[in-house]
């Protein structure tokens, strides 16, 4: 036990940061990329770079429904095309339990060729809340722990910061690296504090039924259906085991609109497809509100009659949906989307500088005492920060290099991309261990080269070069990704040059760091 409260908080802040810092960085990095998940999808799935039709008929979703019907899916979720995701996306589980996703043209309804990638929606986005560890839901629990610890880090960070107001704007890049790193850590932490707290709390609140199930059990016991019905107005009915065709999707949406008054649906969820008891859940898109509110209407799939419309949500559910909305950012507000992206990057800077400060403040002492702690944390920090950036870029480059339908050693295209991501991340860790302090320079150059290669490969393999994408409004998402990659190229090259120059100017320091 430390002698004072502040010293105890300092111990807690230091060690929880060192132990979970790498995981937190991975979660923040993937979460930050998820802000533009649909745009990354467009970049990685060239066939989906389509224009939205001026007049969209929901009946265009019929081929997607029929594809699920042919696969004997017990339910099919169909995402309505919108500005960010201009394709009809159908998702279902096959009879054998495997997951299927198909894309359809929003103008004609014809199926688009399989793009052979999980892209951002199915790899980067789920990574930030599951780490893609599905066994026993382990990923959810690890990320939940990290979310809790992020709040602990925020609170303990404020407690241990003696001159929080005096240092409010203090960043002195001209000072020694240790001091400058701490300054940057403080600036990113204090000035971004509201965002870091809100994003951590809201992440936990979204999955409250997993992390705090007792809140539901206390009132509803084990009856999750009753909870869903009362909180969100959900509706279920068993299949009738009699074949029947679905009414027009336009009629279903018109029925839902008669309840909402205004607003368009963001998805149609057909339960019991092809059955006389088919019902369609239609959810109003929350593009014009912060809250991720569920305005759900259930329509009989055969008669077109309304079965249920969600009752006004209870205050607790309304609060939960608002906090969830702060995290999900499903609203249509480009300024806020970019601000979230910037603040997410600030969170990455906060975590990276925290790890770096730990290493820099112990490196010399550990070297003299013959301890390997600082060296191990230094290598893990390099792999966690620049390593995951390299792995992400390798994921994108692989996407552009592999031919559609390609496979190797029995591994299909989407899995190859993911294997490359993990393999490159592991190689970055090995490189960091072997190279010591020089690893930062080498990995920054690698980021620069890979980011540039990704832009060039996109232009070569799709013909959508920057001039073309900038000129065409519907290709702006692709242009945005390319410009961000080019900025990464320049920034990483500048950092690499500066680090290499300081290593030359101070060979003693670079010797200590292994350069």
């Amino acid at each position, binding site marked *: 036990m430390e002698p004072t409260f502040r010293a105890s908080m300092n111990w807690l802040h230091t060690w929880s940061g060192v132990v979970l810092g790498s995981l937190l960085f991975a979660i923040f990095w993937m979460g930050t990329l998820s802000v533009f998940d649909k745009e990354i999808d467009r970049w990685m799935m060239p066939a989906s770079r389509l224009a939205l039709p001026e007049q969209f008929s929901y009946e265009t979703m019929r081929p997607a429904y029929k594809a699920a019907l042919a696969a004997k899916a017990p339910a099919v979720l169909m995402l309505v095309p919108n500005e960010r995701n201009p394709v009809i996306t159908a998702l279902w589980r096959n009879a054998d339990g495997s997951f299927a996703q198909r894309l359809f043209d929003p103008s004609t309804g014809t199926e688009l060729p399989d793009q052979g990638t999980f892209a951002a929606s199915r790899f980067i986005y789920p990574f930030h809340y599951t780490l893609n560890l599905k066994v026993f839901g382990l990923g959810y629990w690890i990320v939940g722990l990290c979310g809790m610890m992020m709040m602990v880090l925020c609170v303990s960070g404020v407690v241990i910061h003696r001159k929080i107001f005096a240092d409010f704007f203090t*960043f002195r890049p001209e000072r020694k690296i240790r001091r400058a790193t701490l300054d940057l850590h403080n600036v990113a932490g204090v000035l971004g504090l509201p965002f870091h707290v809100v994003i951590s709390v809201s992440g936990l609140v979204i999955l409250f039924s997993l992390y705090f199930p007792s809140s539901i059990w206390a009132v509803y016991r084990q009856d999750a259906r009753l909870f869903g019905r009362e909180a969100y107005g959900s509706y279920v009915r068993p299949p009738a085991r009699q074949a029947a065709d679905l009414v027009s999707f336009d009629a279903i949406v018109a029925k839902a609109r008669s309840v909402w008054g205004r607003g368009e649906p963001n998805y149609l969820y057909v339960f019991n497809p092809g059955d006389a008891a088919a019902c369609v859940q239609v959810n109003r898109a929350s593009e014009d509100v912060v809250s991720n509110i569920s305005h759900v209407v259930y329509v009989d799939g055969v008669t077109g009659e309304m079965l249920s419309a969600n009752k006004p949500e209870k205050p607790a559910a309304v609060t939960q949906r608002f906090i969830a909305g702060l995290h999900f950012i499903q609203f249509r507000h480009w300024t806020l989307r970019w601000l979230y992206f910037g603040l997410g990057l600030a969170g990455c800077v906060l975590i990276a500088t925290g790890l770096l400060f730990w290493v820099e403040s112990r490196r010399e002492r550990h070297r003299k005492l013959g301890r390997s702690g600082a060296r191990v944390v230094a290598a893990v920090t390099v792999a966690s920060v620049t390593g995951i950036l390299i792995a992400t870029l390798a994921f994108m480059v692989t996407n552009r290099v592999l031919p559609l339908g390609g496979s190797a050693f029995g591994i299909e295209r989407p899995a190859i991309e993911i294997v490359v991501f993990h393999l490159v991340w592991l190689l970055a860790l090995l490189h960091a261990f072997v190279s010591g302090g020089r690893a930062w320079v080498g990995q920054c150059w690698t980021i620069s080269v890979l980011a540039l290669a990704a832009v060039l490969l996109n232009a070569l393999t799709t013909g959508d070069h920057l001039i073309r994408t900038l000129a065409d409004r519907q290709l702006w998402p692709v242009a945005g990704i390319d410009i961000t990659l080019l900025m990464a190229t320049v920034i990483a090259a500048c950092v690499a040059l500066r680090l290499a120059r300081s290593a030359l100017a101070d060979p003693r320091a670079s010797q200590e760091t292994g350069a």
Partner: protein
Amino acid sequence: MMIAVLLLLAGWSLLAGSQPRQFSRIVRHGHLPNRTGIAMRWAGAALLMGALVILVRGEGPSFGVLAWACLLSISAMAVALTLAWLPKAISAT
């Protein structure tokens, strides 16, 4: 939105300038009178609140407050980074 951003940058700049440490970084050997510092602080806070009013009126209460909270952080970081390199830029000119 642009006016709100400018108000936030101006507000944070005044708040930063009201701190003796930041003031002496910008104005070499400069002395900030106590009264001026307090006045700058109030003016800075007023500008930050002014940005909130503009955003709430322009974007509505939910989006306005959210945009203000996000811009508050980003603009403060922008001021901190500007102050970091400003003395070097001033001495170079």
